[in-house]
């Protein structure tokens, strides 16, 4: 098997249709995560099939970011989605299991939304 990696940026409204297609085509959900950038946030859903990692990327605004849950297609996605909610403050609607912010207990709510001003040097 080769470690081929594909990145595909898609508009948010097409996320569920695209994920449904990945499911139909036999892709496995390998991971999902958010990344805070300067002006917005991106969310990556990575799917694996025969060693190829296909990542679907959607972009979210910094204020009131929201996503539909993909747990109707991939039940195990609820863990990733709860993590995104607790660490990045992303509202995910329709999660198969919703911990309502109690998945991670952090001193600062949604700690990954802000960046440290001091880089330590």
């Amino acid at each position, binding site marked *: 098997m080769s470690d081929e990696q594909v990145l595909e940026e898609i508009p948010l409204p097409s996320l569920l249709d695209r994920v449904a297609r990945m499911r139909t085509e036999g892709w496995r959900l390998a991971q999902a995560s958010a990344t805070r950038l300067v002006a917005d946030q991106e969310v990556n859903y990575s799917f694996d099939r025969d060693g190829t990692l296909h990542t679907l990327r959607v972009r979210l605004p910094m204020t009131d970011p929201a996503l539909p849950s993909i747990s109707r297609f991939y039940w195990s996605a609820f863990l990733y989605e709860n993590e995104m909610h607790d660490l990045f403050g992303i509202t995910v609607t329709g999660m198969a299991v919703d911990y309502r912010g109690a998945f991670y207990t952090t001193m600062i709510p949604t700690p990954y939304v802000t960046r440290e001003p001091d*880089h*330590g040097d």
Partner: protein
Amino acid sequence: MGTRTVVPFGPQHPVLPEPIHLDLVLEDEKVVEAVPKIGFIHRGFEKLVEKMDFNELVYVADRICGICAFIHSMAYCQGIETVMHVEVPARATYLRTVWSELARLSSHMLWMGLMADAFGFESLFMQSFRIREKIVDMLEEMTGGRIILGVCKVGGVRRDVDNDTLAAIVQRVNVLAADMRRVSDVFLRDDSVRHRLGGVGVLTREQAEDLGCVGPMMRASGIARDTRTLGYAAYGSLDFEPVVETDGDSYARCAVRIRECVQSVDLINQLAAKVPAGEVAVKVSGYPNGEHHSRCEQPRGEVIHYVKADGTRYLQRYRVRTPTFANVPALVKMLQGCELADVPVLVLTIDPCISCTER
């Protein structure tokens, strides 16, 4: 429907070396629902990308977990090396692979000991840990570290191992293999072990696929998937097939881990026979710019280290998807419908590493 009772399981429990909590909803002795909660020791390691540069982060990756430490640092380094187009010397990739397989042996022996302890087989627990101690001794001789090895760096490894030392280690691993066989025979042939693990927590191939299982959890359900077959480090030059069982129960998971120990011994022999001469590291200059999902096979399954960099010293994002995190949904499903007495076995059957999960 009988009266429902909620029994809290953990975060402190005799069978749990690390904290995870489950609310078990019972009808009589049967679990009808299990609600997991983690986050008791979440350390926010990924957030450290804002304070530590990409070279310093190798030390952080090494400390994500005390069982699969080395493979974490290797996966991180591979991610950065891919982004920076660094060609790692072949000898370094072989050494990384040797240490990965010793780490797998150490982890599987640890799991066997903990599982034996969970079902009350004390002598089996002690024998497993005795063997593991010898593996940890070998790691110490080669790297100076027993658990946190600290030998991986971007561009290669920090220490070389001369061929004589490597040959001596291989010889000792082969002697240890006979010892392991005696212990694994008990796991695979003893009636009490089979009675305790057989038919418990069955996941079909379809369920394992749907629930996103990885590692021995997945391979015990008949799915022949192993990240090592991607050929990272020196795995591309080795001859091996994923270890697969088909029963999908706790006993099959035990059998997969035991057979993977045998496989690791074989891989270490193959590596020692092929290890090339040469440098063990190259100088790396500049800063990473780009992104990559680095995938490795931990003892518990596929781990994914995602690195995203913008050409500065500090990464934009470092995200680690650990195998235990991927196996938690399967745990939740397996617990539904099981007997309360089987809960400790089922929790241990996924080989939970909460340190990894709470990175």
